[in-house]
């Protein structure tokens, strides 16, 4: 039996006057998946999330949440979604527990389950012992984020949408939020938007890259690497004339290019090498480079391109495509 996707978006477009925030966005999220929504500021991430959570209507296109059309039945969709908006707005004058109880009532949590639901959400977010009775206005940024996530968890929604959950947090707090997201994996479908790439790479099963309102790439980090940066990359440390490395490899029929050269000690440099040839090139490279007199090879290691590089490649390609598709103005 075919499972109903948690989220299905088809040709979703939203215009603000003459400005197109998102244009014909299509994607699907399976139940239990943790998906990262990645894009530069103003790419259309928040607009897409606001449409999915029923706050805003789309100009055209359709979105289904748990098999229910958002435009036709936004009320029902809101029961399935826990949403934490960008900047995590919270009322400063309320206590954490008061706020979560108030939100539970708004989310139609039955009266007899209300205390248990609030307690569970606070325990998952590690608020129960530390910040239960604290006034929200006095909390640190990390705890505020936890309160926002606890709020999104209330009512046990099928889908949790978090818009920039780690923005403005210190590394310890980011690690805490990451663990929290890991705890949600499998139990809920989670969509996280962010422009902080390592976050998405570590937390998400799949990544959707959006730029200028269009989806420019979607897939796992591995799939994206293969699509956008298919070449092999190596990190090597050489002593001596580092400029001779690329020339030496080219002379042996290997299409190589030095992307970055960082001096690490006197006469010693770390090179970031891109090789266009396919296959397992490591042994071949070691053999060629270790037999040279102009430099000494100290180390060679394959280097996986990180999401930042994939993101830059994907957004660059989309910009180039946008420029190419623009009509040329005749003189």
């Amino acid at each position, binding site marked *: 039996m075919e499972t109903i996707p948690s989220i299905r978006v088809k040709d979703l477009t939203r215009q603000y006057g003459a400005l197109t925030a998102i244009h014909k966005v299509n994607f699907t999220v399976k139940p239990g998946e943790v998906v990262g929504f990645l894009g530069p500021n103003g790419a259309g991430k928040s607009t897409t999330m*606001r449409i999915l*959570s029923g*706050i805003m209507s789309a100009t055209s296109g359709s979105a289904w949440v748990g098999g229910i059309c958002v435009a036709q039945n936004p009320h029902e969709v*809101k029961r399935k979604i826990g949403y934490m*908006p960008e*900047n995590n*707005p919270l009322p400063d004058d309320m206590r954490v527990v*008061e706020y979560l109880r108030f939100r539970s009532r708004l*989310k*139609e949590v039955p009266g007899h389950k209300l205390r248990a639901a609030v307690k569970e959400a606070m325990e998952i977010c590690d608020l129960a012992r530390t910040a239960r009775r604290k006034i929200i206005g006095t909390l640190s940024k990390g705890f505020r984020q936890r309160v926002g996530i606890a709020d999104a968890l209330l009512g046990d929604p099928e889908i949790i949408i978090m818009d920039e959950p780690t923005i403005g947090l210190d590394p310890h707090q980011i690690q805490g939020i990451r663990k929290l997201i890991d705890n949600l994996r499998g139990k809920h479908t989670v969509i996280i938007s962010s422009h902080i790439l390592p976050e998405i790479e570590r937390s998400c099963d799949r990544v959707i890259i959006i730029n200028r309102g269009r989806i420019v790439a979607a897939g796992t980090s591995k799939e994206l690497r293969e699509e956008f940066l298919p070449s092999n990359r190596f990190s090597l440390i050489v002593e001596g004339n580092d400029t001779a490395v690329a020339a030496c490899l080219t002379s042996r029929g290997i299409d190589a290019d030095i992307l970055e050269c960082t001096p690490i000690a006197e006469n010693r440099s770390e090179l970031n090498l891109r090789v266009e040839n396919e296959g397992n090139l490591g042994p071949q490279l070691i053999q060629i480079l270790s037999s040279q007199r102009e430099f000494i090879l100290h180390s060679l290691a394959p280097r996986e391109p990180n999401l930042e590089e994939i993101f830059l490649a994907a957004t660059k390609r989309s910009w180039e495509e946008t420029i190419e598709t623009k009509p040329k103005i005749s003189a």
Partner: protein
Amino acid sequence: MLFISPHTYIAAVLFLCLMGFLYWAILRGMVNTPSETLPTVQFFSVFWIPVFFVVPLLTMRSIAGERSIGTLDTLMTTPTSRVAVILSKFAGAYLFYMLLWVLTIGFPLVTEKLYPNVAESGALLELEPLVGSFLFLATSGLLFISIGVFASSVTRSQLVAGMLTFTTLFVVIIGGQQMGNLADAGGELSSWAVAAVNYLQIFEHLDDFSRGIIDTRPFFYYTSTTFLLLGFSTLVIEAKA
């Protein structure tokens, strides 16, 4: 949010201080120059003074404040309808506004306790004008609070919402009275124009209510305008999401 905000209680304290002072001033004035009008009637005839500042203070934060800090978004993601949001904001502010007026009954009670000889005349707590005045405050309050909620729904700035509420209340309360004065000074007006001007005169309504004349026209004026403004507020938050 209304009842957890310090603004609300500051507005309440200011209201009670001002009304206490006005009540004292009215009683003192009556000692110096005896008047035929009851102190209760005189007291409620200055209802517009606190309305000008209490209504903006109670309502300016209702939607504009939530919109400016972003909590309106989180509210809209819950399965609560827009109508319910507007009605609950309205109900909260209205009930608190009425509670403040109910607390002013404390003034004649305190006076009665302190000066039992004055109270013997029964002038301080005469029931009929008291009920009539409260009925007027309850019905006119519907309109005043709905003006505030509507002004708050059209902007994200609490200051702008407050100024809009104050200006609209000024036009509705004082403008109606001025129109009445102009109509009186302008000689003969057609009967429908006189009826229309009287329909909008809030002070006339207060006079009628405090004398025990319960007319359905003011009820219709206040409730219909309230429904209209609350309906517009719902449409505004729907469109400005």
